[in-house]
């Protein structure tokens, strides 16, 4: 028996049982702001990369805004790296996000800049949430982000209290993501009717009331699904 193995056995006998030396402590989970998602996933892990993906109008941004609002409620400082300059401050503020505690980095259609900025923010530390929004980045451009970059981000965020989030059309981070959520739109709800439609026209709704979002956890473990309704502001 080698010296190291002997020492290990001796140590375990003193502590009263075999120890799982490679086991990592479970990451702290924080609420996402959507109870249905929290029930399905347990929350978002700190110090890990979480990926939210889905097609356009599938509710990815609604979930992102809810997560930002929840982080704002925890008085955390958040950063949003916006690869496509698609962030809407007005609707986000109305959702309860404190804009003065949000750092918005506008990368103007440059995914490489977004990755660099996210890396700097994670290395800088102190942020409760760093979100990367590749929601409108063409899939071909998002796929060009090398797996090495995702690994680098995953390593950078490890052992920090930061929740690292990536929003995209499809999954890009693959094995680097600790939690993967796929969004899909289940339905759309409309409300109201135009008061007096012109002659020969049918009355049509005047408001988009919201969309019903279906969330499926793709990783870790077996798929777990949930759905929730997002309400429109106007």
């Amino acid at each position: 028996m080698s010296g190291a193995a002997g020492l290990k056995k001796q140590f375990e006998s003193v502590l009263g049982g075999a120890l799982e030396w490679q086991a990592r402590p479970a990451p702290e989970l924080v609420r996402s702001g959507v109870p249905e998602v929290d029930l399905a996933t347990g929350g978002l892990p700190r110090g890990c990369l979480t990926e939210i993906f889905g097609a356009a109008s599938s509710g990815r941004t609604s979930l992102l805004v809810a997560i930002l609002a929840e982080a704002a409620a925890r008085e955390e400082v958040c950063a949003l790296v916006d690869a496509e300059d698609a962030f809407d401050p007005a609707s986000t503020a109305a959702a309860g996000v404190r804009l003065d505690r949000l750092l918005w980095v506008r990368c103007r259609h440059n995914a490489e800049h977004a990755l660099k900025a996210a890396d700097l923010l994670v290395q800088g530390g102190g942020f409760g949430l760093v979100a990367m929004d590749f929601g409108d980045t063409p899939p071909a451009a998002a796929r060009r982000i090398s797996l090495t970059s995702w690994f680098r981000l995953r390593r950078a965020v490890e052992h920090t209290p930061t929740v690292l989030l990536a929003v995209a059309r499809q999954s890009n981070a693959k094995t680097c993501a600790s939690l993967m959520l796929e969004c899909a739109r289940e339905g759309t709800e409309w409300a109201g009717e135009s008061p007096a439609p012109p002659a020969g026209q049918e009355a049509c709704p005047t408001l988009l009331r919201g969309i019903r979002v279906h969330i499926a956890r793709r990783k870790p473990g077996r798929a777990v699904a949930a759905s929730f309704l997002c309400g429109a502001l106007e």
Partner: protein
Amino acid sequence: MFACLHGPGNLAALAFEFSPVVERTAPDTVTLDASGLDRLFGFPQDIAAAIARRAAETGVKANLALASNPDTAICAARGFPGVGIVPYGDEAKFLGPLPVASLAPSLELLETLERWGIRRLRDLAALPPLGIAERLGPEGLRLRELARGEARRKLVPLEDPPRFEDGIDLDYPVDLLEPLAFLLARLLNGLCTRLAARALAANELRLRLTLENRAAHECTLRLPVAALDPKTFLKLLQLDLAAHPPAAPVVHVWMGMNPVKPRSAQSGLFVPAAPEPVKLELTLARIKAIVGEEHAGSPELLDTHRPDAFRMSRVLQRQPSDTARLRRVGRLTIGPQVSNLPHLGFRIFRPPLPARVALASGRPGFIAAEGIRGKVLELAGPWRTSGDWWTSDPWSRDEWDIALSDGAIYRVYCEPRGWFVEGSYD
């Protein structure tokens, strides 16, 4: 040897040009320690001439007196106009013609001396010390010492306001940022050490580079909190110079810091961690070097109904509550208090995409824009808004929310210039 300047003007600045030990004796009187100036200028009359010459150059009109002790110099400067040099050992004789009132005794003592017929300093100097001590007490003895030019005391030095500035004249022009960084590091280390010695920090750093073509390149870094880390300052300067490089090689470097008290804050045990301000500033500078100066910060909503109206401001700078502002301008119809539903997110296309819209029964039926093409399956609208009609830049539009056959929900609007896709609900 001591010199005294008496008169109007900025006497302290003049005195500091000749000595580091300067006393502001009165608002119109300044006394300086002139010992050692003889090695620079020579005899006392040469020292007096140098001071008088500099006073004339700076426009200061003051009496000047040099004496072996400060009080004699003060009496002489106050009593005699122009420039006076009191010979060592003849102080009493020199001051003798001056009136007793020039020593500013108390009114009661002055009346007593007047009754005794003592009106000049020479009369006071001739009185026996024992008799004065018996009749006039310590104040009388003090006046007699002054009248005889025998008073000895030390100056109470005036603090020179500390200036944290430094500069380097270069032997040859520097045209690369890397060697310039070494010079900047040298200046920063010196200035930060001086600040640390006085328990101060800096919240503003000014850099002025004199270029070979005689132009000046200036940059000012303002930190949200005071800092004292030369490495941080150096990195910020390097990033700024890399973003805005000087137009020509540098021949002179000047740097100044604004001294302030260092930040002292005790954070709570249960307060969520926030980015350390100086580190955040450095991170922001690095990010701005990548994405551009105006593309990183906190969005601040403007008080208007105009869509997508915001400006970028410094992060972690307290703003009025945006939700409250939205409510005030009436844009928020379903707020957090009304509904607990997650809010429907909206993604904006910047700039809005020009669209070709085929109308069916007065409503959008088919839409084509860059990257978007499809038949309208469902729609809501129109939602008519307008504003700023009282300005030169009015706006008005009809908004429609449409579900398109490509699977997405968009907000399109029609304005006098045509149809546009503003963004998508997500």
